[in-house]
């Protein structure tokens, strides 16, 4: 029995928060870009990157941090999230 049209997408609160966070970050990045456009530069990453590049690299590596965390440890995923957040800041600032 399908009560509402979104039922097939099987939304849950955690995934809704996850996507809302991603969407907010994308909107924030867009606003940031409009307010002060990015300048391509070279940090500790082996290639020169724009702000958006570093954002993408940060998100993708964060995903792999979580995957690795689940694969190799039994510890809470919140620790992985904290590590990913710190890593994200490092990449955005110094990458």
């Amino acid at each position, binding site marked *: 029995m*399908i009560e509402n049209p979104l039922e097939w997408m099987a939304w849950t609160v*955690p995934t809704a928060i996850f996507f809302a966070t991603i969407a907010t970050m994308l909107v924030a990045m867009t606003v940031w870009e409009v307010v002060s456009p990015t300048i391509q530069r070279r940090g500790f990453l082996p290639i020169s990157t724009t702000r958006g590049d570093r954002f993408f690299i940060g998100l993708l590596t964060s995903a792999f941090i979580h995957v690795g965390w689940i694969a190799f440890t039994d510890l809470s995923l919140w620790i992985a999230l904290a590590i990913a957040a710190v890593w994200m800041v490092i990449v955005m600032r110094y990458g």
Partner: protein
Amino acid sequence: MNKTENNKAWFLVLPVVILVAFSAVIPLMTVVNYSVQDIFGPGQRFFVGDEWFRETLRDPRLHEAFLRQLLFTGTILAIQIPLGIAIALTLPTKGWGVSACLVLLALPLLMPWNVVGTIWLIFARTDIGLAGWSLAQLGIDFNFTGDPLHAWITVVVMDVWHWTPLVVLLCYSGLRAIPDAFYQAAQVDGAGAWAVFRYIQLPKLTGVLTIAVLLRFMDSFMIYTEPFVLTGGGPGNSTTFLSQFLATAAVGRFDIGPAAAFSIIYFLFILLFSWLFYTAITRISTGTR
């Protein structure tokens, strides 16, 4: 830098955005939603957190499929790249032979993948297939449906036959792009064939070789149709690569949750490789290092 303030053209992209949203973004979000739940049917679902990811990432069968995938991809790269370069070096550079060779080489690339599988399925049979029959006549007990090694060799040879031409065409175009002046300079210096290859041709091929390696890496990492038609992943699980493992879990057993979790992990790897590919290509084309 002067920026154009007229951004109305963005509305022309809107149909594509809507189309992609319906065909890719929404399904992908749905897969993420599925991956954290145990779903029995509409309205009957339970949140299970990271259980499927934990289960998938620690599944020994997945580890085996992953290792098999790495072995397969490594093998075909180790064969196709040197072979492609070698063939490209021997191709004629002028006359009618050029078109003839290029057309012949392009033929395997034009075939639908399931047809490639079917061709080799028949080709490798010992009763009616030319290759299988010849091997049997040579006294080799060839049986690609029963012997894992034979199945592997058949799949690898099939992929080499199917995709080496791509490497050849890329390398050939790379070789043709080297100005004659380099060869003349080499001749003046008395460089041998090996020195010409090592210090002129190979460095000039770096760009196209990066593209070739990444293309073949990604394509072979996603290989599904040909082994599916040829061996069905067998005998046993010996030629079950990642995408077939996924298809078996999702379609065969209706384990939507675990299949979704696996899809996401797979997607992350493909995303990583695609990004590497994209970065490499844009950096080669813009000449930055």
